[in-house]
């Protein structure tokens, strides 16, 4: 008898003329954590959609054996009946319903259509306990952070008596601390006999928790590595994913740091709805020409809020403090003022704040500085086409033409459009908020290269990221932000993951100044 809980054999799936999956094999042992890695577009999600019945039997070739029985799922319900539950990257919780209501949504504790609220709450409370949450089950989802919401999704899965849990990028939106909690929970569930499939771009996590790792590339299985048998490290995984050596994950750069460019003093911001709550408290920082500074910190530390409040007061109220550019005091009251003074803010949420998804690449890029390609407010389309085409080539935006719709691009290419749009505005100071979130290893490398180029042109770069490794690899100097304050400042030479964490811990305990 084999000890595989799941076998997917010779799966091939085509969309039109394109083979998304080509003879893929995936074997999962009962009770293990199996990681699935690959670049964007490698076929991970397609494979999981076949497993969960989103693509029904008949739309692909190959066979699925679950507990040695062949399965022919018609839809998601069929797979859930057997205990296969998928948690998607975009959470499917309803913000204005309570935790308990969300957990039992579509699976209500009811007798003849009438909901038993006592049982609902009681069961919800139990489930919350297993994932380590102490929240009241009547709390609204909208009051919880992303990390906790992710845990609610898992308890929802547990309520369905899950045998095989599929997590698609569960930690993409989490900081390192919340990610650790989540990974520990997956390990706990493993003890209780739940098998998990983990899809992740974060290779350090994968190598930490996974018992086996399957690498997909261009719709094909490249290899399956087993912990303890094969040598596993990030380089080997990356090599499998991209099909080439990537000896260095960060392009080399020789910093050419110049004069003081941007300085912020006594910056204080209050919460937009709650005028008593200080979100940013008395922050000072400075940036030189050609320098890349990083803002490290946990989720909710206030980094995005700081950036957006600087960028034309786009966040918060009662903002006080002064900003200097080239040693001259400047007012940054509206976005257009900020742009005029040479600021640009590349948002962390490109779909909501960065792009007009229904519009073309061209219109998305030129929007920040239409004056550059017009005369008397009339757009010179010839000039616009020429300039934007240059951006498309320079940043290697994979598309049919500059008239390609932005919403149809892949995540990495969308990010390049957002970056292009802000470079088009000809800023001196670029604030990049999580510029590599949700994009694959290859696209990240390209992004780093662009950032380095910009710095070498003499621009000042503020780099906000939740991935410490990335900050350490890219930045000349790192400010550690915690609870709306600067908890410490580290030079490249003294910056390590441990030092950053130490800064945060000390600051949380109330020790203001860190010396290294």
């Amino acid at each position, binding site marked *: 008898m084999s000890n595989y809980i799941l076998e997917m054999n010779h799966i091939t799936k085509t*969309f*039109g*003329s*394109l083979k*998304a999956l080509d003879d893929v094999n995936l074997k999962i042992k009962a009770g293990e954590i199996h990681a699935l890695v690959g670049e*964007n*577009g490698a*076929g*991970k*999600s*397609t494979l999981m959609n076949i497993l969960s019945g989103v693509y029904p039997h008949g739309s692909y070739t190959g066979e699925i054996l679950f507990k040695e029985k062949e399965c022919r799922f018609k839809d998601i319900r069929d797979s859930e009946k057997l205990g296969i539950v998928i948690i998607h990257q975009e959470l499917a919780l309803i913000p204005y319903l309570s935790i308990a209501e969300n957990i039992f949504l579509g699976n209500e504790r009811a007798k003849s259509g009438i909901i038993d609220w006592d049982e609902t709450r009681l069961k919800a409370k139990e489930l919350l306990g297993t994932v380590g949450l102490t929240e009241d089950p009547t709390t609204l989802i909208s009051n919880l952070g992303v990390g906790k919401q992710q845990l609610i999704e898992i308890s929802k899965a547990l309520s369905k008596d899950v045998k095989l849990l599929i997590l698609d990028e569960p930690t993409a939106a989490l900081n390192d601390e919340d990610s650790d909690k989540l990974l520990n929970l997956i390990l706990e569930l493993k003890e209780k006999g739940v098998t998990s499939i983990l899809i992740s771009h974060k290779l350090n996590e994968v190598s930490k928790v996974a018992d086996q790792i399957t690498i997909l590339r261009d*719709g094909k299985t490249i290899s399956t590595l087993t912990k303890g048998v094969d040598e596993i490290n990030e380089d080997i995984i990356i090599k499998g994913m991209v099909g080439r050596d990537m000896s260095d994950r960060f392009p080399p750069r020789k910093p050419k740091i110049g004069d003081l460019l941007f300085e912020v003093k006594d910056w204080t911001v209050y919460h937009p709805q709650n005028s008593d709550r200080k979100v940013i408290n008395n922050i000072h920082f400075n940036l030189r020409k050609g320098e890349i500074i990083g803002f490290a910190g946990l989720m909710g530390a206030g980094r995005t809020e700081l950036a957006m409040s600087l*960028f*034309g007061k*786009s966040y918060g109220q009662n903002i006080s403090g002064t900003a200097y550019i080239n040693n001259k005091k400047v007012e940054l009251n*509206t*976005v*257009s003022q*900020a*742009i005029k003074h040479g600021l640009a*803010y590349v*948002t962390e949420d490109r779909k*909501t*704040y*960065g*792009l*007009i*998804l*229904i*519009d073309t690449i061209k*219109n998305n890029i*030129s*929007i*920040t500085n*239409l*004056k550059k390609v*017009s005369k008397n*407010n*009339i*757009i010179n*389309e*010839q000039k616009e*086409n*020429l300039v934007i*085409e240059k951006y498309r080539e320079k940043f290697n935006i*994979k*598309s*049919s*033409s*500059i*008239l*390609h719709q932005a919403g*149809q*691009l*892949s995540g990495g290419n969308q990010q390049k459009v957002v970056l292009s*749009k802000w470079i088009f*505005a000809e800023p001196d100071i670029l604030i990049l908020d999580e510029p590599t979130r949700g994009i694959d290893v290859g696209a990240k490398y390209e992004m780093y290269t662009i950032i380095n180029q910009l710095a070498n042109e003499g621009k000042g770069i503020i780099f906000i990221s939740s991935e410490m490794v990335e900050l350490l690899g890219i930045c000349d100097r790192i400010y550690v932000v915690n609870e709306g304050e600067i908890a410490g400042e580290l030079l490249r030479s003294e910056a390590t993951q441990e030092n950053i964490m130490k800064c945060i811990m000390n600051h949380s305990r109330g020790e203001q100044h860190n010396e290294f």
Partner: protein
Amino acid sequence: MNFEKQKQSNTFPLKPNQKDKTMNFEKLTSILKNNIRQYAMALTLVLIMILFQILTNGVLFSPINITHLIQQNSYVLILAVGMLLIILTGNVDLSVGSTAAFIGAVGAIFMIKMNISVPIAILLCLIIGALVGAWQGYWIAYVKIPSFIVTLAGMLVFRGLTMVILKGQTLAPFEKSFQFIASGFLPESIKIGNLNFIAILVGILLSLLFIFLEFSNIKNKKKYNFETLPLGFTITKIIIIIIGINLLTYNLAAYKGIPVVLVLIISLIVIYTFITQKTIAGRHIYAVGGNEKAARLSGIKTHRVLFWVYVNMGVLAALAGLVVAGRLNAATPKAGTNFELDAIASCFIGGASSTGGIGKIIGAIIGALVMGVLNNGMSIMGVGIDWQQTIKGLVLLAAVAFDVYTKSKTNGE
């Protein structure tokens, strides 16, 4: 994930040296698919026209009826232009019918009661229209009350004020020079047989202009390696449109020449097409509708855009109100009833998206013409108002359903 790859490979540019017939065909179908809505609506308009031409035994395209068709529908065409801009921002204006009636009434007071000269009265009316738009724009853009509610209130307020001003009565008649705008014709000087020379000449000039624009457009597209339609297709398109233009001007020439209001409408179409397609302001309107948050973070003053779009609508509603008053030669409390619905329906039939960011002036015009020809054709046939409404409602639903269907198809769902 892999959808994207597939999409890209489908729409990837075809190198000029790939002259293969099948490739050309694929290219054609892919372009048609992308623009299916525009072509489908234009085609529908032509089919509806032919259908009613047969059903009415040729009355639809008779010179006198064509002229009436234009004059009857002038107000919808004017309103549809302003409404499109509003719908592009993702909003709506329910008050335009009431505003039109209100301005008609105000104009009547100015001209009939107070004896103010026609040009000054018109100017004052347009300014009051702008103020009405500014009033609504203020609540929508700066106080952030949903446009549906603000303009619903405006619909009641301005209808009420119309009745107050007119004291429930009809005011008439207007001066001849005022009526001229709505029902007059360009002066006829030279006649060729029975035909108005100016009308024929305008037809020819418009045809030449269209050919020129079409080819310069293609030239530009080729320069940047954008997709272009095969030449045969372009030529067919040009021929159809030239026949259309000259059929129209010939018919007008055979009656009394070119109606003044047609000049007004064509100028509006040209001006607003230019604004929406070629200017920074136009680009900003599309951006606000496409993603307001992203637009604001790109430095666009989104409140200001919204405010001015409503001011603009106020002016165009005032213009429509004056045209209606001039045509009826009276200001009545009931004028302009349901105009807003016709204007909104025109935009959606013409391919505008209800969430904003998508739509073209020419689309709204085609939508308005579809509605106008349906009205006119059915009236000639003696179909009652009851069935006319029913059929118009179904056409609106069918047009949008078709839109949703083709979109979901192209998105591969």
